């Protein structure tokens, strides 16, 4: 029970923590306040409580695939927010605007709500059970601790880089995380039968998804050992779009200065 709780909570926390650290590092580099991100986390936690309560009803929408459609659209929102954040970050004049703040809070809140919802559902499944309650809570806290530490580690590593490289690294990570969002969203659409299924390859022999490396790669890149072809197309399209928009914006800002 203890180990199960650690793993479940860690998996969810890790994804959100990595996204938050990249955004916090970007904020730090631009000399902006990071308090907004905290509001994003709080708003996300509250939203996840509401979502956990209404997931039963959401699941029954759209002929039983409401859960997939709902979560896929949340991933889509995070992708769009990250795309806009990347563009704004490259425009000196707009990196401190209200819009940037709103986008960051939105990205964090939506990401936290999606991960938090699952943790709350998991905890709700066992909190009535006296025998397992203590291992449930301690396991969850350990998972939360490890996930948050990994996020903090990434944040400080990014801040320690020379600004020029830190900036590039952040934009690269933003693109990668945004791509992972679309990879997951398209996976959910395959599961809901809105996109065709199938298997593009099987790398589970040399990098299983349930290994430590596999889990880390899943949190960061959305790694899947047996992705569907439709997922790969969606992922490549999403990464390509974001990379080209960022490159175009970067060139424009360089030629302007």
């Amino acid at each position, binding site marked *: 029970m203890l180990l199960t709780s650690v793993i479940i909570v860690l998996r969810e926390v890790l994804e959100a923590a990595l996204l938050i650290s990249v955004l916090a590092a970007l904020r730090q580099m631009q000399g902006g306040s990071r308090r907004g991100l905290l509001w994003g986390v709080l708003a996300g936690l509250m939203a996840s409580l509401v979502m956990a309560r209404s997931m039963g009803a959401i*699941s029954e929408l759209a002929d039983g695939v409401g*859960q997939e459609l709902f979560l896929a659209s949340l991933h889509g929102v995070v992708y769009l927010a990250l795309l806009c954040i990347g563009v704004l970050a490259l425009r000196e004049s707009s990196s401190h605007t209200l819009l940037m703040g709103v986008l960051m809070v939105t990205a964090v809140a939506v990401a936290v709500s999606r991960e938090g919802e699952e943790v709350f*559902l998991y905890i709700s499944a066992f909190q009535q059970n006296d025998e397992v309650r203590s291992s449930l809570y301690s396991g969850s806290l350990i998972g939360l601790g490890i996930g948050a530490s990994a996020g903090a580690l990434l944040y400080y590593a990014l801040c320690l880089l020379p600004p020029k490289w830190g900036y590039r690294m952040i934009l690269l990570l933003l693109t990668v995380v945004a791509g992972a969002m679309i990879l997951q969203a398209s996976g959910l659409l395959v599961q809901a039968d809105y996109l065709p*299924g199938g298997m593009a390859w099987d790398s589970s022999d040399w990098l299983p998804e349930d290994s430590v490396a596999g889990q880390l790669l899943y949190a960061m890149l959305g790694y899947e*050992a047996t*992705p569907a072809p439709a997922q790969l197309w969606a992922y490549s399209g999403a990464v390509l779009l974001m990379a080209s928009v960022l490159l175009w914006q970067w060139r424009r800002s360089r030629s302007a200065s």
Partner: protein
Amino acid sequence: MLRAVINGTLLLMLSAACLADKPVVELVIRDHLFYPSQLKVPANAKFKLRVDNQDPTPEEFESYELNREKVILGKRRAIIFIGPLAPGVYPFFGEFNPKTAQGTMIAE
């Protein structure tokens, strides 16, 4: 342009036709166990897995091999589309009770 529209319409009709006759496979969750724990499913075809969670608590159907993950709330049913699968054995488990809730899908 016209050809693209016709192709698109045909594709839509085709997928609607496929939607209508997808085989349905039933799975029940009771006392944190899967019934049946060995599930025969059609190979090389998309099918509809209908999971009936009879426990009062939520469970997450999860399978790395099938690339599927879905929370099914207590006393609720859920639908998961799976496949087309190559013939073989695909383990799945309940992430909230991974020690007890285990099963395998045999595609043939």
